[in-house]
């Protein structure tokens, strides 16, 4: 006999149905409602950083980066990627010229030094730590 066939058991069902419930105290419901009316309402904070992995955009970004890498690489099979010619002959030189316009801005900064880099890196780490381990906001219920 299959195990599933053994499970329905009217005898046991009947026996269990006559068993009294192991219930909580008589004023249980009132106590719960009392707590609910006086408890702070939890307002969820921002979505934790690691949860973005569950959304689709990191994967879309990864796909796009891989696509750009493949298009700009010299791998033989990438010649067959549609639109590669347009990308390398028109779009890439345009982007190159656009970014080269910013180059003098960066190269003119003479004050970048090791202490400045340390300060910048430290600030980034503190900001990142604050972003990852911030506490959820708790708002107190005012209406009952």
């Amino acid at each position, binding site marked *: 006999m299959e195990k599933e066939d053994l*499970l329905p058991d009217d*005898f*046991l069902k009947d026996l269990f149905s006559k068993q009294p*419930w192991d*219930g*909580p105290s008589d004023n249980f*419901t009132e*106590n*719960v409602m009392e707590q*609910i009316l006086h408890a702070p309402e939890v307002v969820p904070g921002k979505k934790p950083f690691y949860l973005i992995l569950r959304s689709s955009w990191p994967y879309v970004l990864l796909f796009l980066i891989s696509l750009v890498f493949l298009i700009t690489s010299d791998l033989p099979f990438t010649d067959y990627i549609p639109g590669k010619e347009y990308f390398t002959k028109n779009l890439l030189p345009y982007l190159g010229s656009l970014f080269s316009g910013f180059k003098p801005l960066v190269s003119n900064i003479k004050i970048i030094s090791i202490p400045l880099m340390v300060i910048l890196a430290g600030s980034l780490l503190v900001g990142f730590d604050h972003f990852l381990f911030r506490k959820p906001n708790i708002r107190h219920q005012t209406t009952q």
Partner: protein
Amino acid sequence: MKFQDDNETIGRVLSGDVSAYASLVAKHKNLVFSIVLKIVNNREDAEEISQDIFLKAYQSLKTFEGKSKFSTWLYRIAYNAAISKTRKKKMELVAIEETVITNYSTDEIGRNMNELEENDRQLILERALLRLTDEESLLITLFYKNENSIEDISNITGLTVSNVKVRLHRIRKKLYEEMNGLINKN
């Protein structure tokens, strides 16, 4: 006491009628308490944890998507809360294959039980349930007393459907064995 449909009540609570939540508490308190009591084995702790569970469920009510029954969602919160309070391990998967330990007829045990007075039958069931482990007692109560489906129990406990079937099959056998032993003793 007649209770309203859970989803209807949830709608009222979410639209601002906080007092409507009392009917959800009243409807489900017994089973939530039973689940917790079977895991923590202490009435006072079970009462406190059960109250926390209803509070937590109220605060998370907005996240209830209605994909499963409200009761299944609530019992899962109850099960997880009780497990985490007692630092017990969740039920582990069991091997599907098993050897038959005893050979007996459940029908025969059922017939013997039916010859007894109702009070004696309940006493034997009560004693037989005490001989099961907490987990076994919980599973069989959910299935035969609360009439939860195997899928519901799988959602509550996190076990696979096939494992719930295997466990229930074993527990049922064990329960009959225990009842048989108690009948023969009397």
